[in-house]
Structure formats: C-alpha cells, structure tokens
C-alpha cells in the first residue's frame, strides 16, 4: 500500500469513528444543556445497545427489529436513569451530580457484566457483501451504514429542534427553565426527554459500531469519553460544532494511531483531549472572561 492509500484509509476510518463519537457527543450535549449534568455514563448506553442487539439477533430476531429494540431500550434506560438517580438530586451541586454519573457508570457497567459476562459478542453487518472502494480507500458496507444513518439522525434532530414545538420547548428549558415552567412546560419531563434522546443516540452508536468491532460490557467508557472530547472542543453547547469536532477528532486519532503505532491509540486520543483542554484554556485566558457574556447583559 502506498502512503497515499494508507492516509486515505486512515482518513476514512477516522471519519467513521468520528461519526460514532459524534452520536455520543450529541447525547452529552443534549443532557448537559437540559440538565447541566456532565454524564460520565454516556458510553454505557452504547455498550447496552450493542450487546442487546447482538443477543437479540443471535436469538433469531430480524436485525432491523433488534436494532430498533436496542435503541428503544437504551432510550428507556436513559429516561429511567434520570428519574431514579438524577432527579432526586437535581438541587444538589454540580459536583454531586457529576459523582452520581460516575456511580451510574459503575452500576450500569456492573449490570452489563452480570448479564453478558466478559466475553465479546458479535453482530453481523447490516448488509452483506465485499467492501467498496471509494477513492483510494477501502470501506466496508457497514461503515457506509454508519455514515448514512448518522446523517439521517442529524437531519431529524435539526428538524426536531427548529421546527417542532416539542423541540423548541426542550431548547426553552435549556435556555431558561424558570420561564419555561411559567409557559406551562413541564421541565422535568423535558429533562427526562433529553436523557431519553441521549440514551437513544448512545444505543444507536452501539448498534452501528457493533458489527465493526465487537460488543463488550466495558466498551462504553472509552467511546463516551471520545464523544466528550468533541463536545468539549465544541464548548458543550452547539450540536453542529460537536459533530464537526468529533469527526475531526476521529481523523486525528486515526492518523496518529496509523502513522505512529496502534498501541498508542488511546494515548493519542487522550493526549488530544488534554491538548484541546489546554487550547481552550489559552483561548479563555486571552478572552479573560469570568462571567458569561449572556449573564453580563443584566
């Protein structure tokens, strides 16, 4: 393989990984903007989706149905987690909520371990067939599924947030919860909805990636954290920028791992995370803001 081909290959796999990270990053942003919680357990939704879909298909369920069930269950778990663990403590400080999501990460991971054990589970690709050649890169059919499904999801999310009253009221809760309550919007239901959306997005990421890698009970943390990297680079607020940042991050990670050594893959990924944090810190130092510009407008 020539260097050009190699780089094309790394680019392609970077974009595909980045797309998966973007699904997780979007979920994190949804939760953070609605409930101001940084959800360390986001990746567990993906692990749940992947493991559940894999088991359902093994038991003979059609793949499309299994995928739908897995995403639905992940969404329900997202809502359930909000109800049982986050809402009772919603008035506690951000520190407490953060620790609760760490606890959630442990508990969910533990439950996955109890149900599925430590063995990896596989899921067959959505469509069979040999990989396709696109430009200089060889791309599996499943990878195209990843990109196609994610694109559809992004369009649906865009329409949801800008064209539907439900989406607008969800945004309203994020912008000003008190005013939203005065409009009759049930903020807690909207928060639960945000967690369900995050659960669904996580579950979907798991279903999409399971055929490419294998599903294991502990696959979540690293995936969720990589979604975090993109969301943090994009400032934990903007959906489109989160997608862009996640894809960029996927590409950097893939190029780094490919050109240096795949043993260092996660090291490179989190080196980028630390670099991104430092970069944002420098930008903040230059800006020198201590209060948000919105808060400053009286």
């Amino acid at each position, binding site marked *: 393989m020539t260097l050009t081909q190699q780089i094309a290959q790394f680019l392609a796999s970077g974009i595909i990984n980045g797309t998966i990270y973007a699904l997780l990053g979007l979920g994190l942003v949804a939760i953070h903007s609605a409930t101001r919680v940084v959800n360390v357990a986001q990746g567990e939704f993906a692990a749940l989706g992947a493991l559940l879909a894999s088991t359902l298909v093994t038991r003979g369920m059609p793949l499309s149905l299994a995928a739908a069930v897995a995403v639905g269950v992940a969404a329900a778990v997202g809502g359930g987690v909000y109800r049982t663990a986050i809402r009772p403590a919603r008035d506690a400080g951000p520190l407490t909520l953060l620790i609760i999501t760490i606890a959630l990460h442990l508990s969910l991971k533990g439950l996955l371990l109890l149900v599925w054990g430590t063995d990896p589970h596989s899921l067959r690709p959505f469509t069979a067939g040999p990989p396709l050649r696109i430009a200089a890169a060889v791309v599996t059919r499943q990878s195209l599924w990843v990109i196609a499904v994610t694109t559809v999801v992004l369009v649906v999310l865009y329409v949801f947030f800008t064209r539907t009253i439900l989406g607008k009221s969800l945004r309203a809760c994020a912008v*000003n919860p008190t005013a939203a309550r005065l409009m009759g919007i049930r903020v807690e239901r909207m928060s639960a909805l945000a967690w369900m959306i995050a659960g669904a997005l996580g579950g979907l990421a798991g279903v999409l990636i399971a055929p490419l890698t294998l599903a294991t009970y502990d696959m979540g943390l690293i995936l969720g954290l990589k979604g975090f990297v993109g969301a943090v680079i994009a400032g934990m607020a903007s959906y489109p920028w989160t997608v862009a940042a996640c894809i960029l991050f996927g590409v950097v990670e893939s190029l780094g791992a490919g050109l240096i050594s795949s043993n260092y893959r996660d090291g490179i990924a989190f080196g980028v995370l630390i670099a991104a944090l430092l970069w944002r810190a420098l930008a903040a130092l230059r800006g020198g803001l201590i209060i948000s510009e919105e808060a400053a407008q009286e």
Partner: protein
Amino acid sequence: MNAPGDDVLLAVEGLEAAYGQVQAVRGVSLSVGHSEVVAVIGANGAGKTTLLRALTGLLPSRGRIMLGGRPVARPSPEETVRLGISLVPERRQLFESMSVRDNLLLGAYHRIGQESRAAIEEDLRRVFVLFPALVNRTASRARTLSGGMQQMVAIGRGLMARPRLLLMDEPLLGLAPLVIRDILGTLAQVQHQGQSILIVEQNAKAVLGLAARAYVMEAGRVVRHGPATTLAQDPAVRAAYLGGHVESAEG
C-alpha cells in the same frame, strides 16, 4: 373594598410565603375582578415579587387562592398557567437565544394540541397589532432586541397564553419614559379588550393612572387599598411612593 361575589376573578385570602430570608408575604388578601386592572405598589423588598411568585406556584405558600370561584390548590407554575394565570416575570426572562416568534409561540405552549393552529396564529397576529415594532423583528434572537422591545415580547408571550388573569412583575422597570408611555398605552388597549391584569410596580405614578384599584404593600403586608384615584391623592402614599425618584428628578 372587595368587589362583590360574581365579579371576582381572583380572590386571595391570608397568603403567606417566604423567599429565603430576604422577603416574605405575611397574610395578604386581595382580589381582582373580571376585566379589571389592579395594581400592587410598594418599595423594593416589600414582598410584591414574592406575592406573584407565590400566586404562580414558583414559591410554596399557605393561604387560600380562588380563581373564578374555584380553589387553586397547591399551585405549581405548570398548572396555574393551565388554570388561566400567566405571569410576565420580572426582568422579562425571555428565551434569549431563540427568535421573537418562537418566544411568542412558546407562550401558547399549553394551548398547543388543545386548540387549532389557526387560533394560535390569530393570537400571534393580535400581538403584532398591539406591538407593531416587533413585526420586522420576528426572526431576530430575543437577546439582540432593546430593553423596551424585549419587554414587549415578554408581555406578548404572556398574552399568548390567553390567560384569564395576566400577572405582571415590574414591566416598567428601568425603561425610558417614552417607552413606558408606549407600553402603558398598549396595556390600556389590552384592558379594553377585557383582559384582567394584576400588575406589580414600583413606578406608582405610571401604574396608578392605568389601574382601577390598587393595594399598597409594606414589609410583606397590605397596608392600604382602594380606588387608584383615591390612593394617588392620599398624602401618605404621595410622600412615600409618588415622591421618590420621579418628582425629585423634575426639580
């Protein structure tokens, strides 16, 4: 002083509410009739905002709240807006990153699904007739508007709920007198259309011209009430609330 039975829209008896340790409402009773504008005046910290927060259920309270002859038990803001009480909150509290149109539309949130889309669109047009200045800014983000226009959006958003009773918290706070005149004019128009309003305001002079009756609050209690014209002539009220900043500025 309370209006006779049939005319009473809102009747509050012995309302008690605490707001941290800072402000409190201590046994307030008041009423608002159908199509009536009632003002609550008083210095900052007298408990006016707490009163409105208690009425909408943003704060827990004790005492009796009756709307249209039926008790409002354990109010929560999500419920009271459905019962027909809508609040235009202090400092506007707009959805700042959202468009003017979306802000207004969300005002009608609890009607969506209950009423036709056309009815809501019709009310949207009604708001733009009341506030023509907003017509060209429908797509602008609320935070880019001037203070006066933001207040117009806040009032319009309150009206979009089609409330039986509109509560307003300091709608004139910090606005230039020219803008105050415009907004008072619009409120008079709204009242002529039959809207009941309970308005809390520090700018007693401006609001006593609009309201039929008024209550004066001090330290969490109603200390005086009566027809607005009577209160405006009351020497004690004049000294305390009409003297303040307006007249000293006249020199």
